[in-house]
């Protein structure tokens, strides 16, 4: 299990290569590796200049670790990776990534979706969009909160 909270950028492809090397070569039972990469999206029709990501140092790492541990309890996983950035990001920048490995594709997919759903609504990150003509905090969406109901 690897949890990373950092301001610096990361290379999702290289991270997938590292994760796969640890998962596949090291464990002959691994048959499926799923990755998710989140990208800063300009929902403001070309006027987004910067996405500011604030977090709660200390609690962030603890919350992500707890979410990843819960995933490893629910599914039989080889490994879990979570990377999340904070600070100033530009449209198109990679903001976060999760990866899972398992014997079967169903477990790897479900665990990755679980990580994403909980990370969205239970890890202490907040986004502020700095637009060409103003700024606004990104509001939580009801459908993100509703998504958690799937895992009850």
């Amino acid at each position: 299990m690897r949890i990373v909270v950092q301001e610096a950028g990361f290379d999702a492809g290289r991270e997938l290569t590292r994760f796969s090397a640890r998962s596949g070569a090291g464990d002959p039972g691994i048959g499926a590796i799923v990755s998710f990469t989140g990208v800063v999206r300009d929902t403001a029709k070309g006027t987004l200049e910067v996405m500011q990501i604030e977090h709660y140092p200390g609690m962030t790492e603890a919350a992500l670790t707890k979410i990843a541990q819960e995933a490893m309890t629910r599914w039989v996983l080889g490994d879990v990776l979570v990377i999340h950035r904070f600070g100033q990001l530009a449209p198109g920048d990679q903001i976060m990534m999760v990866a899972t490995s398992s014997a079967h594709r169903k477990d790897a997919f479900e665990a990755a979706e679980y990580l994403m759903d909980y990370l969205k609504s239970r890890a202490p990150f907040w986004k502020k969009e700095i637009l060409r003509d103003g700024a606004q905090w990104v509001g939580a969406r009801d459908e993100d909160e509703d998504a958690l109901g799937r895992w009850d």
Partner: protein
Amino acid sequence: MDVLYFAWVRERIGLPKERVETSAATVIALVEELRAREDRYGAAFADLSALRVAVDQELVDFDAPLAGAREVAFFPPMTGG
């Protein structure tokens, strides 16, 4: 006890962190004390349904006890990912 504010809660109150001397038994009692202080607290805590709270870095409800707590944080619903 350290009280932390994040995102627009931090912006409304005007600081990220402060030391608060309190004998409040619960989070909601602490909120009431802060609200009574200054308008900016009233503005930040106007709608508790739009807020989340963590005690010692664990998400809790507003009626959670504060006995032994070192750190309380207030913030809007999280928007990671």
